């Protein structure tokens, strides 16, 4: 037995890992259930950095990743766009990676065009496209954005884009959001934009920077928190936490809107929305109580519909991928333990040293 385990073909491990990842995907895909997420302070600070902005504030979103890391980064990019769109922020998209514009367009199509059709290109969001030059691009646009970006990705001169009229450089932004798969990415944005021009004790009016990055990069980015980086989403776990926060907040917003439409005062509606968002069944119970007597039947059914509406699958990608993570990590821990047991048993019997 020990000998067989010592000489186990590594391809059996690959097969086990494939099953550990594949089976949970099928189970989650069929049942539609995801694991609950408890946001860490880092994900919370990313959420707060976006949420504390006022409608109309400017956000630069640099999507510096490609399809190779899409599985890890696309969920957080989607959550960022949804959060900004729901918050009615002005979004300036750009990319330092050649394939980045495809990721930008994908998010514009999936989130803005499908769920926020009221947003107008050029007034609420603009796609500035890709520019080559790595950190040199950042170095230039922090003082003069138009030197590099003379047109948007469609070839329209930036002077003719309404939302570009009040923007001269990155310093005119209120928040910088970077989703990064490597070089150039989060580190370069921190070194060349956030550190010299971002918000600090000596520059309280400067922009804040938040980032989402791959697991490989995350440990290198932690030292920049909180002074040079307001928050960080590390890999798929960070994405799932942020996604959870955004989904809860959007549900809360929509419930509050339904309550206000039903004739309730805004402050009271906000309080109730928080309760209903946490336990959706509570909204239905409330509508049959005396407190909802003044509400019309249409407004009540609208409230129940909003409170119980399932979250669209495209906004649950990160949370869905935490299921395979859990099982694969359990397998990994088990394999490490088994490997160590085999090693020490072999050594005891005079084998490996």
């Amino acid at each position: 037995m020990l000998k067989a385990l010592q000489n186990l073909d590594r391809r059996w491990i690959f097969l086990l890992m494939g099953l550990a990842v594949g089976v949970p995907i099928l189970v989650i895909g069929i049942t539609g259930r995801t694991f609950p997420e408890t946001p860490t302070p880092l994900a919370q600070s990313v959420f707060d950095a976006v949420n504390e902005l006022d409608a109309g504030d400017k956000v630069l979103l640099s999507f510096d990743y490609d399809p190779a890391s899409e599985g890890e980064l696309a969920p957080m990019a989607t959550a960022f766009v949804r959060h900004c769109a729901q918050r009615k922020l002005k979004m300036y998209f750009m990319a330092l990676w050649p394939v980045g514009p495809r990721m930008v367009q994908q998010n514009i199509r999936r989130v803005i065009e499908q769920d926020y059709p009221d947003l107008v290109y050029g007034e609420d969001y603009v796609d500035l496209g890709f520019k080559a030059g790595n950190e040199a691009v950042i170095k230039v646009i922090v003082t003069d954005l138009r030197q590099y970006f003379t047109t948007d990705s469609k070839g329209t001169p930036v002077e003719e884009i309404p939302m570009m009229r009040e923007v001269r450089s990155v310093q005119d932004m209120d928040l910088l959001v970077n989703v990064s798969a490597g070089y150039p990415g989060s580190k370069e944005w921190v070194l060349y934009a956030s550190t010299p021009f971002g918000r600090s004790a000596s520059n309280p009016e400067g922009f804040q920077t938040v980032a989402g990055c791959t697991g490989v990069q995350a440990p290198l980015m932690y030292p920049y928190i909180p002074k040079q980086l307001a928050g960080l989403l590390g890999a798929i776990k960070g994405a799932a936490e942020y996604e959870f926060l955004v989904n809860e907040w959007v549900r809360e917003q929509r419930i509050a809107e339904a309550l206000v439409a039903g004739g309730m005062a805004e402050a009271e509606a906000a309080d109730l929305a928080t309760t209903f968002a946490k336990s959706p069944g509570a909204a239905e119970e409330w509508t049959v109580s005396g407190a909802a007597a003044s509400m019309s039947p249409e407004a009540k059914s609208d409230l129940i519909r909003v409170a119980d509406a399932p979250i669209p699958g495209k906004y649950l990608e990160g949370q869905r991928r935490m299921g395979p993570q859990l099982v694969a990590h359990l397998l990994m821990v088990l394999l490490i333990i088994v490997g160590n047991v085999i090693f020490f048993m072999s050594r005891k019997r005079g084998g490996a040293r």
Partner: protein
Amino acid sequence: MNARVLAWTVILLIATALLVWRASTGLGMAKVYVEAEEVSFVEVTVPPPPGAAADETSKTLWLPADSTEVRRYATPAQRDAAISWTELQQVPPKAYFEAQAADPNQTAIVLSWPRTIGIWIAAIFTLSIFSFLYRDNPFYRVAEAVVVGVSAGYWMVVGFWDVIIPNLLGKLMPEFVKANFLPGLNATGVEWAYLVPLVFGIMLVWRLMPKGGWISLWPLAFIVGTTAGLRMVGYIEGDFLSQVSSSVIPVINPIEAPGGGTDVMATIWASLRNVLLLAGILACLTYFFFSVEHKGGVGKIARVGIWYLMITFGAAFGFTVMGRIALLAARLEFLFNDWLWLIDPTDQRGVANAAAMVIGGV
């Protein structure tokens, strides 16, 4: 035929049979549907908005035919000269099923063969790459070569259209670029300074010539020098000075309670965190300080430094594993969802349950 070849032939035959069965039952699999959409643009002269600066003049722009500006300012002749084309928009399969249920002869939403073949190619390439886990093989090599070749080609084309055309040729030959490539370009005049990057670019490509390859070393030296200079400033400010500043922290870190006074537990944790951070920095620095032999007290501190480093590497390894599993999960999700239609997490097919998707009619 030896036993191994026989085993693999049987496995492949079973896999093919399962695939054929899957494709012919329920809703089928791996199909992409599109809807045709007419797009029309009109060239219209838009006057400056009310209250605009005196020097602002009318602009001639190409705008969508249904835009407010076109409705307001376009002349009949301009409307007649509109440019129109058909765009194929991808729609979820459920839109096709609904359209078919309403009218079986409808042609508004149709199967897109190129995009369907694209899904199949992506799936086959994904499996080809996975096949390397078993052993190196021709399928893996073909997939790898195609990925590398397509990536290189894509980078070149994007670099040409996003940088060389607008940022180099657009500066040196603005009228020509505006007339032939970028109608929206602001052709304000030739910027002769851009001759410098043009010359450097030509010198860099000179490496491909049979003689005079050394010429490329000059622009290369310029690139290396500029990058080094840029990075030195960035790293000194962002990494060195800022990190030193962030490490100068109080050992006792009092935290205020929400109701006033000091939150004792929060203060203890915050102070402990600062102490651990400072201890870690000093221990790791000691480990990398080789001018003193790592014996006695110095050796013990260096050993603590090793522990800190190992915990850091462990965290980095954990993050890397998490990242790789997420990538694997994304590929498997693509195979199960987009290719095999076994799951439908984004409600693309509008089916009540997975069984209905696979065997139909449930």
